[in-house]
């Protein structure tokens, strides 16, 4: 009896130790190999937008240079910070929002761009920064469901959105202070000049008026989905998403008046493995034909003015930089947001929870 049990014991121990070593060995050998020279990892915002970028920029770049382009999504700021701080950076090029750009610079997360490789002719100097260069000029603004508001009786300004009597229904707003506070101040009669620095108290008081009618969305795709499903009747949604949904047949429409513009920037994370390739990529991405290729497929405006030579008129009508629209829209002060994001966001969250 003892002998048999002894055999069982020892064989169990042997099995355990074998399993253990297999696991350890497995873990060791599945560690990723770093990107070999001749690769590039690009990270953008996913969905239809990134599909457009793939066709217009990523694939042509790969064909032309032979560099293997791997594109990922979505951009995750926490991930970026984790990578840079731990020294194991896997991303080479990232598309950041302008409001985060200043935080990224402050925290030392991105590399300065080499403008001897990156050619910025055609790009307005205001879009060229030390650590990043604008990729697209996007916007968001008033969008509404055409089934809730028949033609002619739709909201045309933020003041209208705040008017619950004439325009009844559920409003959708982004669960961030950026865009939301601007919308509130615009509804309160403030113009671009008086917008910054933002009077947060005034904006929150104005928001109190419709707070009970607001549904808050976080992801861009969620916002447009709510509008299409009529879970919200009107509110703030990103332009590109609305127009894209409209072109695909959804009963939604965008109001250019009092739209709010911001830019996205191409940046290179500090310590990126393929910096040279990254610089070449950004240079390629800024070329007019390539920017036009994106704008044709997804309605965001290019940062390179020369791109308009390649964009047909009917598409140009839908872009924010079109003079018809540009003058009606207001621009985000990304620098102000970069400096004040933290405490304004806390104030906003505190207000949200009341």
């Amino acid at each position, binding site marked *: 009896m003892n002998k048999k049990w002894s055999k069982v014991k020892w064989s169990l121990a042997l099995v*355990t130790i074998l399993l*253990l070593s297999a*696991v350890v060995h497995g873990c060791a050998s599945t560690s990723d190999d770093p990107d070999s020279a001749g690769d590039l990892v690009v990270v953008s915002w996913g969905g239809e937008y990134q599909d457009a970028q793939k066709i217009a920029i990523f694939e042509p770049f790969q064909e032309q240079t032979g560099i293997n382009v791997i594109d990922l999504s979505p951009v995750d700021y926490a991930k970026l910070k984790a990578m840079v701080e731990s020294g194991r950076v896997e991303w080479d090029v990232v598309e950041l929002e302008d409001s985060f750009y200043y935080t990224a610079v402050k925290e030392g997360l991105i590399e300065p761009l080499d403008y001897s490789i990156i050619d910025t002719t055609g790009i307005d100097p205001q879009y060229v920064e030390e650590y990043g260069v604008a990729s697209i000029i996007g916007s968001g603004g008033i969008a509404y469901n055409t089934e809730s508001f028949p033609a002619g009786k739709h909201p045309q300004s933020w003041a209208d959105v705040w008017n619950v009597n004439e325009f009844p229904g559920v409003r959708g707003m982004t669960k961030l202070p950026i865009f939301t506070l601007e919308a509130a101040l615009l509804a309160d009669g403030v113009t671009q000049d008086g917008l910054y620095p933002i009077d947060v108290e005034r904006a929150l008081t104005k928001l109190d008026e419709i707070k009970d009618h607001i549904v808050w969305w976080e992801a861009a795709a969620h916002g447009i989905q709510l509008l299409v499903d009529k*879970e919200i009747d009107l509110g703030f949604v990103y332009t590109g998403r609305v127009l894209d949904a409209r072109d695909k047949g959804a009963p939604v429409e965008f109001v250019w008046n009092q739209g709010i513009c911001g830019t996205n920037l191409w940046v290179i994370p500090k310590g990126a493995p393929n910096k040279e390739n990254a610089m070449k990529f950004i240079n390629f991405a800024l070329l007019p034909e390539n920017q036009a290729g994106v704008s044709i497929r997804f309605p965001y405006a290019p940062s390179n003015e020369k791109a308009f030579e390649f964009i047909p008129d009917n598409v140009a009508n839908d872009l924010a930089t079109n003079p018809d629209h540009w003058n009606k829209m207001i621009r985000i002060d990304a620098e102000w947001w970069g400096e004040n994001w933290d405490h304004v*966001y*806390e104030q906003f*969250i505190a207000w*949200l*929870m009341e």
Partner: protein
Amino acid sequence: MKNLLTCFNLKSRFPLKNHFSLDTFFNQHFYMILLIPSVLFLAVFFAYPLIRIASMSFFDPSFTLKHYIHLITTPIYTRTIFNTFYISISITIITLFMSYPVAYMLTEVRDRTRNVLLLFILLPFWVSILIRTFAWIVLLQRYGVVNTILLDLGVIDTPLSLMYTRFSVIIGMTHILLPLMILPLYGVMKGIDKSYLRASYSLGASPYRTFLSVFFPLSLPGVAAGSSLVFIISLGFFITPALLGSPREMMISMLIDMQVRQFLNWGFASALAMILLLATIAIFLAYRRVLGIERMFGG
């Protein structure tokens, strides 16, 4: 082993007290080798990250209590913590009241029926939480199932706003956590000898009295196990309150998420996480003191 010991004459060189013998110790506690994989796994993937998070909350970069001070002095954070506890306690009580009769019924029915009923309880348990949460969204949203039915029946004129309220959060979380209350309750209840109840009746007690004096006290370990499980899990719950609730229903988990992903303030997020951990440990210790550790595992 025996050879080693006799070879080096260890036994006579180092006479051990209480007749402790390495040989018998090894023979009796052999199972410890089998524990090595699990212990290593837990050490690397659980203990180490936990220590990292604790150190992140206290060292930023040098020793500081600023995160904890910020936490205690800012009203929204204390309000969120209070909110979280309030919602978790409500859910625990509601789940308890809903599960108790179900668990009792499970002990009374025939085996075949019981297997079918257990299947109904366990199947949703195995479906992903995210999918179940989305199912509630489909049911409760403005033009979702509930509203459309009521609208078509003419009961209401405009859709009820069921989503993004405390109601929707509590319903969603209760639905998801019910099996976790039913199963421990059932586990303890089926061990209660029904002859005690019969004895109570035979001594003249009413069913009501029997329940209060005999059945309920015997089921308390199950109540303790189920409630502590449900409560601790609801404290840390993220997906359901995030999707079904409005910002007014913000819970600690959502705050931590915001601090990690949008504020990138990991020191503060770690402090929040430590508070959550401390609360959990405190509850665990309270249960241990009041009811004894064996009882928590149905002993």
